[in-house]
């Protein structure tokens, strides 16, 4: 059972209280983008076996979207953070690096 702490209301929410929303920090393709860019934006998700950044919604709680850093190979949760950011905060990245020295980094 996956448990994520909602960074807004501080509730340690278990999975049935949450709705998964897929990969985080996607950059939307805009007018003038190429077919390749649209394809990447719409379909080409990162699907790493390891560190993954995702969107979640505290749907049966405060209703807000937040982000989580998780390991898809072990289900370990590195941390959660508010969605109003374009990249994972430094403390989360440091925590991941400490636990996964060979992590190739965010990007």
């Amino acid at each position, binding site marked *: *059972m*996956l448990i994520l702490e909602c960074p807004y209301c501080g509730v340690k929410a278990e*999975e*049935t209280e949450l*709705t*998964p929303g*897929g990969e985080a920090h996607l950059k939307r393709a805009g007018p003038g983008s190429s*077919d*390749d860019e*649209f*394809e*990447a934006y*719409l*379909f*080409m*998700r*990162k*699907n*790493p*076996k390891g560190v*993954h950044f*995702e969107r979640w919604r505290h749907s049966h709680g405060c209703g807000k979207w937040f982000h989580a850093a*998780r390991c*898809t*190979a*072990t*289900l370990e949760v590195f941390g959660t953070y508010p969605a109003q950011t374009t990249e994972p905060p430094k403390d989360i990245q440091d925590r991941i690096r400490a636990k996964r020295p060979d992590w190739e980094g965010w990007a």
Partner: protein
Amino acid sequence: MGQKYSIFAIARQAMQYHQGWERAWRSPEPKRKYDVIIVGAGGHGLATAYYLGRNFGITNVAVLEKGWLGGGNTGRNTTIIRSNYLQDPSAAIYEKARSLYETMSQDLNYNVMFSPRGLLMLAQTEHEVRGYKRTVHANRLQGVDTEWIGPQRVKELVPIINLEGPRYPVLGALYQARGGTARHDAVAWGYARACSDMGMDIIQQCEVTGIRTEGGRVKGVDTTRGPIDCDKLALVAAGHSSVLAEMAGFRLPIESVALQALVSEPIKPCMDVVVMANTVHGYMSQSDKGEMVIGGGTDGFNNYTQRGSFHHIEETVRALIETFPIISRLKMLRQWGGIVDMTGDRSPILSKTPVEGIFVNCGWGTGGFKAIPGSGWAMAELMARGHSPLTEEFTMFRFREGKFIDESVAAGVAH
């Protein structure tokens, strides 16, 4: 050529206390180089190898498997076989597969226990009624034998069903009389034995850890048992397809998620068809041993652990009990998960890739067991000839062009 299995062979072996059975396939050391390397000894990888040999005479082939053969989704699925899809390209490849299942035991000289016992997809909402009627019409045009049946006929076929609801009334069903089940392990074992007989090497405990390319062409793979060269490489790794694509330097439109199933204690025969209930994300059949085999929905988040979330099992069982009240006191014996490879349009990918000589067969998601022989047939043709009428629409580049083969509208769960 290995031993032929028959009733006479059993009788002969009985005389010598069954001491004379040979191993069904060899376990050779990897050679330095093969014409074709296939990564993944699941049903799709093994079937690809089999048809490369049988239909095209290509037998200098190795199938590399990181665990044991059939230990991926092929050995974890609930074995539903049907071909009642909506879109033409799907109907073509799934119906090819279903028809090959009919003669598979004879073709492979291996009993895969194909049981075309009939399959019902229940309509439990007005929308499903409309959707399935549409599928029946589409299937007529495609030459796939399905029919729409009303609630009374459903009750005749499935006496243990509760038609009334109230939550999930049974309004009818999409019925495919030639759908059914087969023994999943046997499909992998039968192909493995036939491939080994043709001189192919099936190498277990051999994980591919890197893919070597040169000037945009494949050179070979690095494995836990050393480097091996090849002219052509097929990635047939289901939930691990993205990991392998990354080794080759490209990305696939795939996400890996857990899908679970469970079986009950064995009971007397009470249901001789397969029943799927897509509204409630559950489906059920009874195995020859008497267990009720139950499958449910996928988790919503990326996962490589072969472990799913418990609440999905609870949801599936809770809903199925309304439709099959008789199962409410059954004890569940086992529950397990597999990592399935989901594409955006819920259709598979059988395709060339940006790297010359590398082919990919993946994206079968929650429903690829039924497709194994058709997929292997088509994939072998694609690899040997460079094109196949069955794979044309399933290219990995269809997403860029917006040419989806949309099966997700037809059924949220598509086993």
